[in-house]
């Protein structure tokens, strides 16, 4: 029993990162109607960004977030202007085709760049408090991962409030719902796209930082994280940041349960099964309004 609970706790902890990884993908997909298949690579870059800040400048990984997030915002803005701004207003067929090509191209380029810069080795940030654990009734909770879960929830909550309460947040939601109607109310929808993409990239950067401290990064993790994020987006549906966070937790728990019940290899399968079942039974997602 304890072993099961322990597994589920660890599943919940990584689930928070799944939620954070998916939040950025969901925002970009919901607003730009572009599936950024290089989203996992952006997470990977965020992880290496924090790793570099630690290795070269001695930054604590959690403190590095304060630099990684603005850096990722700016990087996202550049990516939008150079790559994605060309396709967002193209006809649907062109947009889908070209954005996938751009995304896969970007993913390959970033993978290769990461191998050049950081080699193919797995990296992880080790801190003085890395091994710290709180024990609750025989269940060990790694502190770093717990902090990551809380931070992931806080970041998603922050973006949620930004979208809900601010003028441009409302404009982004309006653009997601009906971009022509948004134009008619005087919203510069291109700026709404830019903001959404930049925020989505910042969320990816933050997720990568937390991955590099609680887990590990290597140049090849991009695709894996894109898939995890995609599963969560399908699970949760578009349009709700808190729903996406819960979707991440659900995936984390489902993976842990599968690994405990059927053995480790089934961990990676359960997400795809969920993906399939949700698409068939409730294609709008569990939490979409």
């Amino acid at each position, binding site marked *: 029993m304890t072993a099961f609970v322990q597994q589920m706790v660890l599943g919940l902890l990584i689930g928070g990162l799944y939620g954070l990884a998916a939040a950025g993908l969901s925002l970009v997909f919901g607003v730009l109607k572009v599936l950024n298949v290089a989203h996992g690579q952006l997470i990977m870059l965020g992880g290496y960004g924090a790793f570099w800040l630690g290795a070269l400048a001695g930054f604590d990984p959690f403190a590095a977030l304060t630099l990684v997030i603005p850096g990722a915002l700016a990087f996202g803005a550049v990516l939008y202007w150079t790559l994605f701004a060309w396709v967002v207003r193209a006809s649907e067929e062109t947009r889908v085709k070209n954005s996938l090509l751009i995304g896969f191209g970007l993913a390959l380029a970033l993978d290769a760049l990461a191998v050049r810069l950081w080699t193919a080795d797995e990296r992880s940030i080790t801190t003085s408090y890395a091994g710290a654990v709180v024990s609750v009734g025989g269940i060990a909770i790694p502190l770093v991962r717990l902090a990551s879960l809380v931070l992931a929830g806080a970041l998603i909550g922050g973006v949620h409030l930004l979208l809900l309460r601010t*003028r441009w947040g*409302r*404009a982004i*939601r*309006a653009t997601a*719902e*009906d971009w*022509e*109607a*948004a*134009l*008619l*109310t*005087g*919203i*510069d*929808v291109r700026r709404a796209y830019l903001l959404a993409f930049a925020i989505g990239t910042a969320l990816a950067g933050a997720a990568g930082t937390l991955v590099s401290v609680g887990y590990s990064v290597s140049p090849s993790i991009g695709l894996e994280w894109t898939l995890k994020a995609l599963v969560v987006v399908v699970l949760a549906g578009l*349009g709700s940041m808190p729903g996406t966070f819960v979707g991440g937790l659900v995936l984390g728990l489902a993976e842990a349960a599968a690994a405990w019940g059927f053995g480790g290899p089934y961990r990676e399968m359960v997400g795809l099964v969920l993906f399939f079942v949700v698409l068939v039974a409730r294609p709008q997602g569990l939490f979409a*309004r």
Partner: protein
Amino acid sequence: MLEVEGLEASYGSFRVLSGVTLEVRPGEIVALLGPNGAGKTTLIRCIAGLLRPRAGAMRWEGWPLGQAEAHTVVERGVAVVPEGRRLFGSMSVEENLALGAFAPRARRGEASRLEGVYAIFPVLRERRRQLVRALSGGQQQMVAIGRALMADPRLLVLDEPSLGLAPRLVESIFGLLREINRGGVSILLVEQNVHAALALAHRGYILEAGRVAAEGQGSVLLNDAHVRRAYLGPLAR
């Protein structure tokens, strides 16, 4: 005020407008009538900046409209109530109205204009926290007009505001349009409801197959033999 001259527009190779000329003068209500497919909505999309015309000129208070970015048209004082209302259904009434005042110029005096919209449509004040998609068709039309008024327009362009509404509701909406016009807002009204539109409008244009087929004062158009035959039916009195 609004001048459209020789406007041509097409979707791909399909030409919809072939040389439309019309104008809206300060303080006027102008009706734009015509059968489905005549190009009425296309003309509005050109004015709103959603579609680039192929040829011709459009000026709004002397400012060229044809090449303008859509979001800057509102800023200049032209607000459009699109066909089918196009509200943000997952947002509340108040959020929809607030989005109407998104343009920088419209943000000044937003609070007092919101009061003005609630004064015209009191039911919206009661429903302000409700999601728009939970409202009736008539109330949604009020939100759509209210959202456009929040932009503090000098020209209000409406694309078939009577569509899908019960006749009594249409009457009250048209009555409110007259009120809004008396408040100093010019109106370009696209309608299928020829009788009601011409009764409200100072002048009207009949658009047919992408051209202006007839124009004149509302009452004159209403009595025009061609208009009567084509739009009011043989039994029209």
